[in-house]
Every structure is written in C-alpha cells, then in structure tokens.
C-alpha cells in the first residue's frame, strides 16, 4: 500500500475519511489527535486483514472504510468521551488556577488593607460595608466554582464506576465552574477598581497588577471554556 500525507502505509482514501472525522469532532486537540491516530491504526489493521483475506488493495481499503462506517457516526460515537475530556480539563484547570490567583489577591489585600490583615489573623475587626459584601460574594463564587469543578472531575473519572451520571452533566458542571470563576475574578477586579476609586488605598502596584492580569486572563479563558462546554452539552442533548 502506498499513500499520501507522508504515511507510506496509509492510502489517500483513509486520510480523506479521517479528515472528515476530524472536521466533525469537537473537543480538546490532544483528545481528537489521539482518537484519530487510533482510528488510523484500526483502519490500516482492517485493510491488512481484508488484503490477507484475498481482496485487492483498492477493495481492501473500501471494505475497511465500510466496516468503520459513516465518519459522522464515528464522530457522534465519540461525543460523550470528547465532552468528558473537555469537561475534566476545564474543571481541573479552574481548580488548580483558582487558588493561585486567589493567593495573589490575598497577598494584595493583606498588604494594602489593614482590616483584612487583621481579619486574616483572626483579630476582631470590621471591614467597610462594601468591601465586606464584595468579599462575601467572592466567597460564594469561589464555592460555586469549587463544587461544580469537583463534580466535573468526579463524573468524568474513576468515580463513574460508583457515580453514574448522564454524559451531559459533565460539561454542564464544568460550564457552571467556568461561570463561577468568571464571577470570582470579575468581582476581584471590581473590588480592586472600587478600592482605587473610593478609598485611594495604598496598593502594592506590582502585586495588584499581577493579580489583576491573572484574574483578567482567567476570566477570559473561563468564559471561552464555559461556552465550549455548553456547546458540547447542546450537541450531546441533540444527539440523544
């Protein structure tokens, strides 16, 4: 067998077939690349099996492609796995990045705001009303992110043996975690702007700028990830 696309044992028909599967497969690039590589290997095995059974090269390739079926059906079959992979990746990224960004904000707040420094050391203190309410809202957003993120991890890994969940729940949990992260980061940025505008607090500029940049980046990434997860959930619901 000779072939194009730099693969000496992969005929052009198989490359075209896999290009169709790839075009219909959503989700993280690494997951898609792995799936397509495995399908390519399977198609070559199937072709060789048909060659060994006595078919000619062209018929063997056609028989292998026929055995694997419509590229759209193959892509649909992998939708649940791709959605789980995307949801898990989003949830894990949010759960890891959250505490890192949170620490930057905490360091900024403790350096600039004596009341927060005192509250953090468990000394009785009263925060300005607006700041206190803002921090409570951040805590709610963080709790939503952490809970939804943990659920997203739980329903896409080994716990599925004991915790069966409908496939559409994983991207939904990851999307909720994404919206929670957007809320937490947006509130963090809002509180910083309010502090600068109202109290003219003495902020450690480098620390505050780093925290703000990290939150802005996380906000944008969380928004994109949440939208992707919702799109995958919609595809799963439509494919039911």
């Amino acid at each position, binding site marked *: 067998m000779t072939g194009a696309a730099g693969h000496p*044992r992969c005929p052009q028909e198989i490359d075209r077939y896999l290009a169709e599967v790839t075009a219909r497969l959503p989700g993280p690039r690494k997951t898609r690349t*792995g*799936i397509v*590589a*495995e*399908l390519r*290997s*399977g198609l*070559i*095995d*199937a072709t060789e*099996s048909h060659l060994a059974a006595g078919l000619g090269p062209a018929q063997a390739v056609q028989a292998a492609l026929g*055995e*694997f*079926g*419509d590229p759209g*059906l*193959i892509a*649909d*079959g*992998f939708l*649940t*796995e791709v959605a*789980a992979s995307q949801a898990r990746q989003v949830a894990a990224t949010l759960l890891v990045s959250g505490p890192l960004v949170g620490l930057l904000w905490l360091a900024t707040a403790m350096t600039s705001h004596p009341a927060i420094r005192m509250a953090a050391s468990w000394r009785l203190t009263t925060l300005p009303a607006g700041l206190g309410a803002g921090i409570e809202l951040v805590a709610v957003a963080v709790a939503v992110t952490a809970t939804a993120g943990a659920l997203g991890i739980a329903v*896409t*890994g*080994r716990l*599925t*043996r004991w915790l069966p969940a409908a496939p559409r729940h994983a991207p939904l949990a990851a999307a909720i975690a994404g919206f929670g992260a957007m809320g937490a980061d947006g509130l963090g940025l809002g509180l910083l702007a309010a502090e600068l505008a109202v109290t003219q607090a003495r902020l450690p500029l480098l620390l505050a700028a780093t925290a703000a940049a990290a939150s802005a980046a996380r906000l944008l990434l969380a928004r994109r990830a949440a939208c992707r997860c919702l799109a995958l959930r919609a595809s799963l619901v439509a494919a039911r």
Partner: protein
Amino acid sequence: MRAETLKGHLDGILLALLEQGPLHGYAIMEALRVRSGGHVDLPTGTVYPALHRLERAGLVAANWSQAGGRRRRVYQLTPAGKHSLETERGTWRDFSAVVSALLRPAPLAASPS
C-alpha cells in the same frame, strides 16, 4: 445481533475479551466477531468509544505500543476491570437463570380425576 440488543452488556463483553491478554482496538472487534460465531458485528463507532469509557473508569488501561513498524493502542484489564468482570458474570448468571426458568414451558397440569 444489533448494538441495541447488547445494550447494558457491552462493557462486560469487552472486559471478557481482554481477559486472555492485551489487545488493540481492531483485534478486539475481530475477537468479538470470532467468539460470537459471527453473530455480533458491532459498528466501530460503538466499540472504540466504549473502550475509551472503560479506560476513563479505570477498568482497562491503554498504552501506545510499537511493533513491526506500526503503532497501536493496546488495551488491557486492570485489577478493577477483573473485579468488575466477575461481578458482571455473577449478575448475568443470576439474570439468565431467572429468565430461563420463566421462559421454560410450564409442565402440563395433571388432569383432574
């Protein structure tokens, strides 16, 4: 036999096919055809995603291996997969015994004297 007929049992069947040793995706599909006497010929779009789902659940482990100039993704049972297979077998034995008993023709009632 269609995929819908095997619904609920595909995971156990795939685990059973891997009981004898590691296999790659296409070899699993061939084993399915051979061991079912040609009665089961599932679409590829069902088998490969099911293998990925089993991997995600930790019931099989998958690794890329290189042999004869070819790269293949090879699946093998994990200890949790072996345990799950035993559970599946027990459940199936109980289920099939009950259904067989229910489907068996009832003995003719003794005619009243």
